[in-house]
């Protein structure tokens, strides 16, 4: 049973978090615990996940009591509440006016029905009550040890936000870093569909950052939609944003950490050279219901459909792919990504790869080595998973051969 209350200012931050998470996915998990209330979302291609934890001291009052009945698998310890973004986002649509208009907001769940009740106590004695039904679904945990990344940058969001107007939300953006500077640029670089796309690049010197630690000169490419969402949230809470990353292929973490809340967006990045993605490695994913469990999965296609929720992290392929002959090609998420190509390959033989050949990847294991994959690595953010984090991090995502999941 969850019961918490917030003031107008606090619910504005809460609403902003939901808006930021809406850029990740259409589904939101409400995951309360003794530590506080966590909001989680995971996008459909599993290439981005968002997590915002509001600690119990963030709220004016916060109460979470686990249900009395305990099943064998301990599932009812958790709320397992999944809400549609379409239901919850309109409730927090006008967050900017919350400070003036809303005096108090209460959120609670009813013990018997699958319902979350959000009540706004507004000026002039107006009370607005929203009853949102939820689906029982255990949220996916994310494990990502940000402190183990070679490169950590902390920057005031305003500076990066100026750069982000260069890029439209559907684009992939490349972050290239060296000890001398950071370069944020359009992902397609010199190679893409050239005639109409602007290539933009912004260089930022190290003294503009609050913290600039570069252990590894590298370039990572990821979708800028979630980055924009996190920047907006970071500006709203007036906390600088940190970026943690390593080599291409390993996910990048965008995080803001404050006394009252912690937010992490973990995004898949395009994998680098094909040599790295040669051999299928293990993917690790844990579910809320089995928080102490780790699953080692074979990344072969066959096992993918077996478990719910899907435990194979993959980036979907798009039907129209441009790939140079004989060079590995990056498959990116279906809905809103372009077709970036990392290798500076010869452009003479660019042709469209018919969809069927993407599906052939599954049948021909040796073609794995010729293809690049984005990888997504999941692990728990919470500290009680430390013991599992010594496992090797290399991971491989599989290209999905179907468009419609």
């Amino acid at each position, binding site marked *: 049973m969850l019961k918490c209350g917030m003031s107008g200012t606090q619910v504005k931050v809460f609403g902003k978090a939901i808006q930021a998470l809406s850029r990740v996915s259409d589904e939101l998990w409400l995951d309360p615990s003794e530590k506080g209330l966590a909001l989680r979302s995971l996008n459909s291609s599993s290439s981005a996940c968002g997590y915002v934890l509001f600690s119990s001291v963030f709220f004016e009052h916060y109460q979470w009591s686990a249900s009395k009945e305990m099943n064998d698998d301990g599932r009812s310890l958790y709320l397992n509440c999944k809400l549609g973004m379409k239901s919850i986002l309109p409730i927090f649509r006008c967050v900017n006016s919350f400070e003036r208009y809303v005096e108090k907001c209460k959120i609670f769940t009813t013990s018997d029905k699958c319902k979350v009740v959000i009540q706004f106590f507004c000026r002039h004695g107006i009370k607005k009550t929203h009853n949102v039904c939820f689906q029982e679904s255990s949220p996916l945990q994310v494990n990502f040890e940000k402190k183990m990344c070679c490169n950590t940058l902390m920057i005031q969001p305003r*500076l990066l936000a100026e750069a982000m107007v260069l890029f439209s939300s559907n684009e992939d953006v490349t972050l290239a870093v060296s000890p001398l500077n950071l370069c944020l640029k359009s992902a397609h670089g010199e190679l893409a569909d050239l005639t109409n796309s602007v290539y*933009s690049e*912004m260089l930022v*010197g190290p003294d*503009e950052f609050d913290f600039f630690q570069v252990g590894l000169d590298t370039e990572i490419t990821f979708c800028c939609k979630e980055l924009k969402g996190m920047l907006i949230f970071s500006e709203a809470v007036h906390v600088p944003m940190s970026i943690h990353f390593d080599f291409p292929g390993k996910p990048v973490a965008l995080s803001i950490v404050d006394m009252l809340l912690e937010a992490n967006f973990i995004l898949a990045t395009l994998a680098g050279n094909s040599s790295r993605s040669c051999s299928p490695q293990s993917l690790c994913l844990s579910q809320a219901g089995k928080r102490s469990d780790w699953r080692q999965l074979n990344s072969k296609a066959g096992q993918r459909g077996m478990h719910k929720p899907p435990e194979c992290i993959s980036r979907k392929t798009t039907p129209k792919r441009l790939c140079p002959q004989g060079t590995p090609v990056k498959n990116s998420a279906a809905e809103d990504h372009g077709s970036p190509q990392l290798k500076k390959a010869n452009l003479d033989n660019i042709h469209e790869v018919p969809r069927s050949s993407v599906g052939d990847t599954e049948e021909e294991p040796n073609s794995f080595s010729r293809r690049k994959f984005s990888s997504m690595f999941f692990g728990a953010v919470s500290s009680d998973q430390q013991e599992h984090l010594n496992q090797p991090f290399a991971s491989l995502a599989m290209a999905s051969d179907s468009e419609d999941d």
Partner: protein
Amino acid sequence: MKFRAKIVDAACLNHFTRVSNMIAKLAKTCTLRISPEKLNFILCDRLVGGGVSMWCELEQENFFSEFQMEGVSAENNAIYLELTSENLSRALKTAQNARTLKIKLTNKHFPCLTVSVELLSMSTSSRIVTHDIPLKVIPRKLWKDFQQPSVPDADVSIYLPVLKTLKSVVEKMKNISNHLVIEANLNGELNLKIETDLVCVTTHFKDLGNPPLASDDASRDRDPAEMAEVHVDIRKLLQFLAGQQTW
């Protein structure tokens, strides 16, 4: 062909940005003509009858602190480029807080207009933002299509009312009819009329004022109360009015 230019003054940059925004609202692609004294933005909607044509001329020394160009040849000292107008206006959007803006013609696998902005920043290292806008070079044989249009002698010249008001009136009229009649006279009166089988709507503007007539103007003999009228396509008029909102 060479082109390099630099803007250091904030007001000039602002003005240039606003011109670019206006162009972007009017048409998807535009032609940029670079000559030693001037910069022109040219739109000509040759394809569809009744399209919007535009000729915009900027004296380069009013905007640029540095301006160097070398045209196709000594006799034809001009450069004609075709680009997507929105790309330029978006690139200039980042230049709001710029210290300097540099534009040059480059060739990075294909011809580009490289816009390089040096942003103001607190610390010693300044941020540099670069945009490579792809464009097409227009061959000399097509240059005749982009000459300055001649403005025909007018029967009536009148100052328009506040464009915002005009735009909201025309926008509502768009829902009723596709064609609009604009009529005006030398007494400062302007009417906008639409007519369908079911309804006629007229909006009257009075006391608008007319520009002074030149001494050899044929309309001197005209009866000031007599209206001159034209029929225009409402959507094209709205497209024009929408582009003016940046001022």
